């Protein structure tokens, strides 16, 4: 069998730089995209802000200084103060924690539930599929913001409930995504191969189908974090999300609506924070899509 091995290694080695897994490969191509990295830096910035910001933020978020109400940005209050005389910068920093947690937690919840339902529907098919898919159809036919409002109305306003509502309205999106992904992976040849070596269904599901359907979920998840932050802000704006004195950005926006003309900084900075964070997730989501979804690669 001498001819099978010789001289091959030189070529093989030339082609393969390092031992790289598919994830690391994706990371490499992700890193190459400037916008994606920019998005990641924005997110990282806010994440660090959320983690460490409260430690360095000059003042507590709830210290009311009636004398310093509605101060414009200055060297003392970099982003000015709100109508309680609270430092807006401090509140934005603390708000990062809220917005990011709502974004992440709600998406994680909907990914977990959605994936579970999607996998069950996609893999087992038949009546489970019918029931689950129909339920998704029903949920998707609702205008999502109305559905969220209705859910929050049932549960009562508050950050946790807003989070739950956002998680619920996102479930069908992930469920459908996973279901279709499972359906297509089910037809892939390596699934056939796994069956052919005598593998059991459960193992095929968890060791083959699940990991391979994760890429679009991660992409979708990143983008969904962005949407979730916006939705939380919208609910906050309607007074159905975070409650006083939580410095949630959407609520800060709503609270400062009437100062748009007299004290514009109270509304511009929270708005900008939302926009930047969401932009960060969107940028990163795009980058991830290019990195993880080879179909979109040029």
């Amino acid at each position, binding site marked *: 069998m001498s*001819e099978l091995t*010789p*001289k*091959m290694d030189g*070529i093989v080695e030339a*082609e393969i730089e390092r031992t790289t897994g598919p994830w690391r490969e994706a990371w490499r191509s992700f890193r*190459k995209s400037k916008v994606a990295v920019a998005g990641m830096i924005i997110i990282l910035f806010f994440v660090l802000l959320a983690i460490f910001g409260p430690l360095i933020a000059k003042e507590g978020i709830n210290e009311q200084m009636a004398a310093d109400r509605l101060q414009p940005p200055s060297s003392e209050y970099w982003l000015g103060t709100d109508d309680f005389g609270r430092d807006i910068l401090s509140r934005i920093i603390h708000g990062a924690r809220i917005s990011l947690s709502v974004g992440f937690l709600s998406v994680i919840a909907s990914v977990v539930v959605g994936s579970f339902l999607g996998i069950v529907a996609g893999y087992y098919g038949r009546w489970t599929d019918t029931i689950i898919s129909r339920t998704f159809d029903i949920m998707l036919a609702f205008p999502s913001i109305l559905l969220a409002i209705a859910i929050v109305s049932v549960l009562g306003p508050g950050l946790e409930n807003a989070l739950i509502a956002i998680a619920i309205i996102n479930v069908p999106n992930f469920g459908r995504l996973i279901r279709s992904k499972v359906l297509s992976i089910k037809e892939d040849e390596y699934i056939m191969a796994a069956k052919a070596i005598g593998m059991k269904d459960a193992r095929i599901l968890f060791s083959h189908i699940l990991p391979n359907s994760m890429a679009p979920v991660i992409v979708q998840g990143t983008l969904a974090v962005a949407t979730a932050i916006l939705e939380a802000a919208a609910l906050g704006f309607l007074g159905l999300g975070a409650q006083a004195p939580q410095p949630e950005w959407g609520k800060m926006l709503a609270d400062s609506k009437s100062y748009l003309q007299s004290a514009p900084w109270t509304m511009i900075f929270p708005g900008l924070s939302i926009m930047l964070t969401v932009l960060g997730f969107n940028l990163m989501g795009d980058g991830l899509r290019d990195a993880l979804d080879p179909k979109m690669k*040029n």
Partner: protein
Amino acid sequence: MNERKKILEVNDLQTTFFTDSGNVPAVDHIEFHLRDGEILGIVGESGCGKSVTSLSVMGLVPSPPGKITGGEIVYNGRNLIGLSEKEMRQIRGNDIAMIFQEPMTSLNPLFTIGNQMVEAILLHEKGWSKKKAEVRAIEMLKLVGLPRADALLKDYPHQLSGGMRQRVMIAMALVCNPRILIADEPTTALDVTIQAQILKLMRDLNDRLGTAILLITHDLGVVAETCERVIVMYAGQIIEEAPTKLIFEDPQHPYTKGLIQSVPDMRIKKDRLHSIPGNVPKPGSVKSGCRFAARCEFAFDRCFQENPELYETADVHQTRCFLYDEGRVKSDGHKAFIES
């Protein structure tokens, strides 16, 4: 045969893809010509640059990331490189036409056959009425052996079988009587019985219309049955060029030789196939020396250091191998090769 005029000359063509993972010289200093009315084959394994060569001639290299980075393509005395998009459009379809590998995807699925054919005609026959163009389209469809040609005009591509679609593609390509037809693996996606039909059609058309054909394939059988002259490509380069008969009777490059021997022959059962070890390198992955050296059993030191040129070994036969370097230094490799 040699008296026929060279209608297409490709000199020192280089096409490079500028990708994230580096520059890929997909076509690396290629030089060949096509004579009026001949069928020239380009063979080579996957990724060796056959399609890029043909797209370069058409000025259709996907850009970005691809770009023609050097050389000239002379058609009818005119260098196509550097022509404006508008001038190039005049040439495409009119003088040089092209058909592609996948008949399933090469026709726009959302337009009828008639629509697409008429479009092709009207693009170059300014002032023709649609009616006239339709008549011409039907004529062409009949020419390529499609039954019910007029009804076919109203059909969508998906209503046709693969073989029929490839015939439509050919008809559409020939609609303006081009001088050159470039066919990029036109039968690879088809079943053998259908492949036989299409190849026969192409030979007939070449006979009757005198269209020169540049036939790209990886199937040596197709080359043997169809082409007058063959170019063998490897990793972006031409490594051998000769009339078909010569290539099969007296292959010179070790790669060509290996390739021919690798093909299982339907006529005789061999115990064991000859095989070329190693993998086909991507263009650009071999930085120095002969692209084939790593897989070559006759390789010697020089092969790993310098890239050989195309040596003319006979009037009509060229090979890119140091074994045919006139000023060659005798070596073990050479001896072994000659003896083999």
